[in-house]
């Protein structure tokens, strides 16, 4: 199964991936959370460090959810959420190594790897928009 892969050496820290993610997921700062994908560049000790991070679909959140809202899609391998029963307890967020789950209006939201786009034969929005090849789907 294919995964979203990040190669730091190719990243320009341009934020295109995170804005494409905002566009795909209708991100609004009024959520009071960070967008699903964050990125950027910082200069320290004479060197630039570029990054782009999001949910890595490790699945640690699946087991801690008390209401089994989170599952792994069998077709794509992406960790997805059905928030019908979600109570916004935040256990998923606490278990996450990269704080991917966000609680918005009492419900958990996170990157689903653009699950439906993948099923439709398309690339995840961030990968599609990345001009340098730092993000790929392989």
């Amino acid at each position, binding site marked *: 199964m294919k995964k979203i892969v990040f190669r730091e050496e190719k990243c320009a820290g341009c*934020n*295109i991936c*995170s804005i*494409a993610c905002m566009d*795909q997921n209708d*991100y609004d700062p009024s959520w009071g959370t960070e967008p699903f994908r964050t990125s950027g560049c910082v200069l320290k000790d004479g060197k630039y460090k570029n990054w782009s991070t999001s949910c890595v679909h490790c699945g640690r959140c699946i087991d801690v959810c008390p209401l089994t809202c989170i599952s792994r899609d069998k077709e794509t391998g992406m960790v997805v959420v059905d928030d019908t029963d979600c109570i916004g307890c935040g256990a998923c967020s606490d278990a996450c190594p990269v704080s991917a789950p966000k609680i918005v209006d009492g419900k958990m939201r996170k990157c689903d790897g653009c699950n*439906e786009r993948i099923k*439709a034969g398309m690339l995840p*929005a961030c990968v*599609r928009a990345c001009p340098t090849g730092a993000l790929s789907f392989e």
Partner: protein
Amino acid sequence: MTETEKRIAAKIPGEDTGIEIKKSVCPVCDRACGINAYVKDGKIIKIEGCETSPGGKGFLCPRGISARGYIYKKDRVLYPLKRVGERGEGRFERISWDEAYRTIAEKLGAVKAQYGPQAVTVYSGHTKWYRTFVQRFAYSFGTPNYATESSCCFTHGYMAGKSVLGFNVGPDMKNAGVFLGWSYCPHRDPRDLKAVLSFKKNGGKLIVVDCRRTQAAEIADIFLQPIPGTDLAIILCMANILIENGWIDKEYIDKYVYGFDKFRAAAAKYGKDNIEALSGVKYEDIYKACELIHGHLPMAINKFNGHHVNGFNANRALYALSAITGCYDVKGGQSPKPFAFQHMGGGFKTLDREFCEAKRPLSPLPIGCDKFPLWNWYEHEAQAISIPDSVLNGEPYPTKAIMAFGLNYRMWPDSQRMKEALNKLDFFADMDLFLTDTAKMADIVLPAASTVERSDLKFYPGGYMWYPAPVIEPLGESRPDEQVVCDLAEIMDLDDPVLRSGVVATYDHILRDLSFKIKDVSGPDPVKVADFKPWQPMQALTAGLPTPTRKIELSCSVIEDHPEWGLCSVPDYMPAFDEKEAAEYPLVLVAGARNKNRFHSRLTNHPWERAAAGEIDIQIHPDDAAELGIKDGDRVVVETRTGSIELKASVTEVSRRGSVNIYHDDPSAPANDIIPSDRRDPYTGFPAFKSSRCRIRKAASR
């Protein structure tokens, strides 16, 4: 959720979801990158780059990828508005287009009757695509005062190109051996980044000169970080080193260059003894850069914005480096890039200049042209920096009304003075996409449609042209700017049958010498037109350049012929700063260095811009910050002799020691408010955005 509901939520195009992909053009800037607009129920729900477009080839930059939020920004003007509150207060009443047009016609007509047509200024902000229409409208109305924002941004470099070479020019990086990247930051745009990475991969050498340590410094073979505003001295020092070592093309100079000896004498003043004191860059490092240039010719050079008092001459001197190394009009050097339409190159010529010139009133001189005669010589447009002098002081004569398309007073130095001028006008109308703080000053505000809601003529490299169809209906009652110009020409009964014949007929009139009409380039994709002629090296030089001497003019013959102007015919350096200010204002302020996520004020109030780029800050070098007791994130007050602003400090090695950077145009920390407007480049009238003096202190805690 059903499967279809999931697909709709994920914006999957298809018959089941009712989502259609429509090709259009990015509305944020003028580079016309192709977009795929995902449209559902007449609304754009997502944007991606369009793979088949010659603009971007499937990718967008960080500003372009934000385009949906730009189109639907909450402050879009949707209807014609009449001001009912005080200027700037923001209280408006919705009116009809008919009433708006009649009011404008009546008010401009009244000013013309009482004071003469020159008392009306017709102004264009950024963007540029509609400017031919706006300029012709001004001239047909009878005023010589057509003014644009380019008179403090783009035009100084264009004037330098015209004076030295007779053309706008551009680099042939692909075939170059060495690339001189002056204030060069390719990481802002994926197209530029891909080009430079491929250049490097093929063995090209990169020299970057920038007062900021951007990501370009990381990929450079040599990086020089001068004191802002002093770069002309470095360019002259480079010329001196190249000439002294004989690393020049003597034969080429003899044949194609005018004024070499005068230029050599000017350059000879900058060398080992003074360059480090002037520019903060070691002579040895400049020498190494020259060695690299000499060893890897041909050299291509990027165009840059020299927004300081030496800006025009810095651009001229860069063109001189190209000339003395024999790199102009050769493969891998600089090539002529004459504009086809507005500031867009096409590889052919439209009649847009002739269209405007045919109606230009020859007197009186436009405002600002009396003070800046070289500007008048090349541009004969109003130098808009003089608008406050005209409105507030009546110099050289009063301006009483402004009809503007996208005016932003924060673009101008000492912005509050420009605002004061707008406040004093008898009448001010402004057409804009957004109800900006400037639009709030207007008596009538007209709603502009964005690129995806209308059509306009786009030019791409390689002779590709496109007049794309709108992909959504105009928001509210917004209209295209050129339609408004044509409508106004009709309602005001102007003696201009062409403008009054409508938008497409006017375009076809401007294209009449070419093989195609608007309908021929209105298909689903850009098309290559038969009129395109690719650049042939040495053709321009052999034919003779469009300068008075037909040669590359290192000494400007126009200036030589006009000693009364008091200008120097060769690009000589003048002190970048007023040394009297140094003790009181020890730091150098740079306002307006570009930022990946911002494009002037276009994305102000955009919900994703702040999320991606953070709040507006002042960038201070760690050593300066330590000396001033400022920590990262502190609120600080920045003062110049013009005023002060308060904003967040970021302590970063991006800034050079002794200089600080603030992004421009943002209402939260309007940097141009504190840039003095009275220090101007005498050649062009440009202000010192990139080299004013300031001081910084910690803000009182709130």
